[in-house]
C-alpha cells in the first residue's frame, strides 16, 4: 500500500528501459551470432545455423577444463575472500571505535588502484626474481624461487586483492546488523566466544555472506585483465578464452556461445546458492 502498482511500474521503468535499450537489445543481437558457423579467414558464414558452438563447450575437453577451472577459481577466490575478509570485517565492527575509520579507509584505498598498474605491482612482488622471492632467498628460507606468478597462485592472489574490499564492505554491513544482545544471550546460556560466533553471529550474517559471496564469485568468473596479466598463457579462464575467441581470432560465434553459457550458468549458481543460504539462515 505504501506505493501502488502503478507507481511501482513508473519507478522501475526508467531503469528497465535503459537496461533493455543498452544491455538486453545489444546482447540479444548477439544471440543469433552464437548459432552461426565461423570460417577462419573468411568470416561468419551467412545462412547456415548450427549448435556446434554450444555443443563444443560440453564436448571439447579443453573447454570443459576451462569451465571447471573458472568456476573452481570463482569458488576458491570467494572462499578465501570470505575467510580473510570476515575477521577484518569483524574487527572493523567490533574492534576499538577509533580504529574504524582508518580501517575502512585502508580497505577502500586499494580499490582505486588501476587494475593494470596493480598487476605490475604484483609482478614486481611475486615474480621469480620479485621482491618476495628475493627476500626469502636472502633470508635463506628457500633455494629456488617459489612459482607465485603466471599460474593459479598469481591469479588467485590478484583476484582476492581486487575483490576483498567488496566482500569486507558487504560483511561489515551484515555484522553491524547483528544485535549485540543476541550474542550476549548466547554467552549467558553457556556458549563460549567461539561457539557463540559459530552458532549465532555467523548464521545471522548469512544474508550478508551470501550477498558478498555472490558479488565476488560473479566478478571473479568474469574477470579478464587480472587473469590475463597474472595468469599468463598457461592459466586460462573463460573470460580470457572468450576474449581470445572474440578479439584474437575474431570467432564471434564461438565467443558469443561461451559468453551466453557462462552467464546462464552463473545466474543459475547465484539463484541456487541464494536458496541454500536462506535455508541456512533459517529464513526459508
Amino acid at each position: 500500500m505504501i506505493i501502488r502498482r502503478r507507481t511501482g511500474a513508473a519507478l522501475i521503468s526508467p531503469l528497465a528501459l535503459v537496461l533493455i535499450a543498452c544491455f538486453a537489445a545489444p546482447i540479444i543481437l548477439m544471440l543469433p551470432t552464437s548459432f552461426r558457423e565461423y570460417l577462419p579467414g573468411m568470416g561468419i558464414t551467412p545462412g547456415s545455423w548450427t549448435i556446434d558452438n554450444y555443443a563444443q563447450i560440453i564436448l571439447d575437453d579443453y573447454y570443459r577444463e576451462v569451465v571447471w577451472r573458472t568456476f573452481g577459481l570463482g569458488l576458491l577466490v570467494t572462499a578465501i575472500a570470505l575467510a580473510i575478509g570476515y575477521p577484518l570485517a569483524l574487527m572493523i565492527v567490533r574492534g576499538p571505535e577509533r580504529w574504524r575509520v582508518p580501517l575502512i579507509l585502508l580497505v577502500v584505498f586499494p580499490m582505486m588502484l588501476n587494475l593494470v598498474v596493480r598487476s605490475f605491482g604484483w609482478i614486481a612482488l611475486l615474480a621469480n626474481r620479485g621482491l618476495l622471492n628475493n627476500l626469502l632467498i636472502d633470508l635463506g628460507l628457500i633455494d629456488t624461487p617459489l612459482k607465485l606468478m603466471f599460474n593459479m597462485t598469481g591469479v588467485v592472489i590478484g583476484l582476492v586483492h581486487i575483490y576483498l574490499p567488496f566482500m569486507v564492505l558487504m560483511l561489515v554491513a551484515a555484522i553491524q546488523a547483528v544485535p549485540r544482545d543476541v550474542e550476549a544471550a548466547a554467552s549467558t546460556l553457556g556458549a563460549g566466544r567461539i561457539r557463540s560466533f559459530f552458532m549465532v553471529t555467523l548464521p545471522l550474517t548469512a544474508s550478508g555472506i551470501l550477498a558478498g559471496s555472490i558479488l565476488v564469485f560473479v566478478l571473479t568468473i568474469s574477470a579478464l585483465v587480472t587473469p590475463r596479466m597474472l595468469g599468463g598463457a598457461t592459466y586460462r579462464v573463460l573470460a580470457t578464452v572468450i576474449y581470445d575467441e572474440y578479439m584474437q581470432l575474431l570467432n564471434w560465434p564461438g565467443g558469443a556461445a561461451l559468453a551466453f553459457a557462462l552467464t546462464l550458468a552463473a545466474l543459475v549458481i547465484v539463484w541456487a546458492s541464494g536458496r541454500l543460504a536462506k535455508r541456512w539462515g533459517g529464513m526459508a
Partner: protein
Amino acid sequence: MTLAPGRIVAIIAVLVVIFLQVPVIVTMLAAVSTTSYLTIPPQGLTLHWFAEVLSDPEYLKAIRLSLILAVSSTTLSLVLGVAAAWAIHSRALPGSEAIASFLMAPLVFPSVVIGVALLQYVSLLRLYGGTGVLIAAHVVITVPYIVRAALSSLGGVDRSLEEAARVLGATGFEAFRLVTLPLIRPGLVAGALFALVTSLDNVPVTIFLLAPGQQTLPVLIFSSVEHGVDPGVAAISTIMIILTGLILLIAERRTGFHRFV
C-alpha cells in the same frame, strides 16, 4: 568487553590490511623511481613523473573524461537504481525477485562481449560512440551495484517509518525523500563507491565506445602498457588514490558513512 574480537582475529585483520596495502605501496614507490621503466625497489627518488603526468594534456584529458563518466554514470545509476530498488522492495510489482536477479546479468556477462555488442548496436542505429553512449554503457555496468546496495539497505529500514511519514501528511515521494533516503544513504555510499571504482577501471566496454580523440584513464593506461610503461602510470595511480582518500575523508565527515557502510 566480552565480545571484543580475540587476538587471533585482530592479527588476521592486520595481516589482511597489510596485504591490501602492499600493491598500493609498491605503486607509490614505483612512482618516484628515476628510471624510465617501472621498477621496484625504486632507483633514486624523483617527483618528475608526477610533474610529467600532470603536465601531459593527454592524461589530463583522460582523467577529465574518466571523472565525468564516473560521476555522471554513478549519479544516473543512483537515481535509476534507487528508484527501481524502492519499487522492488515495496513489492509493488509482480516478479520482483526475478527482476532483482536479472539485474545481476551485466555483472557476469563478459564485458568484452558487451562492448562489441554495444558497438555493433550503436552502429546499427548510426549513433557511434561518444560521451552519451559511454555514460549509458557505464550505467549498465554500474547499476547492479547500486541496486544491490540499495536493496540490502532498504531491507534494514523499518517500514512503519515511511508509513508514519505518510500519516503525517507526506506524499509517497516526500516520505521516501525525507525518511527512507536519509536512512539508506550510508549503504548507498558503499554502492556508489563500487560503481565509481567499476567505472573508473573499465576498459573492455569503454574501449569500443570511445569516440575518436576521446580517452579515459584506464584505457590510456591499458593501451600504453602494450607499448611500454613508464612510472607515469604509477604516478597517476598514486594521484588517484590520494584524491580518493581526501574525498572519502570528506564524505566520512559529512555523512559518517562508516557507521553503516
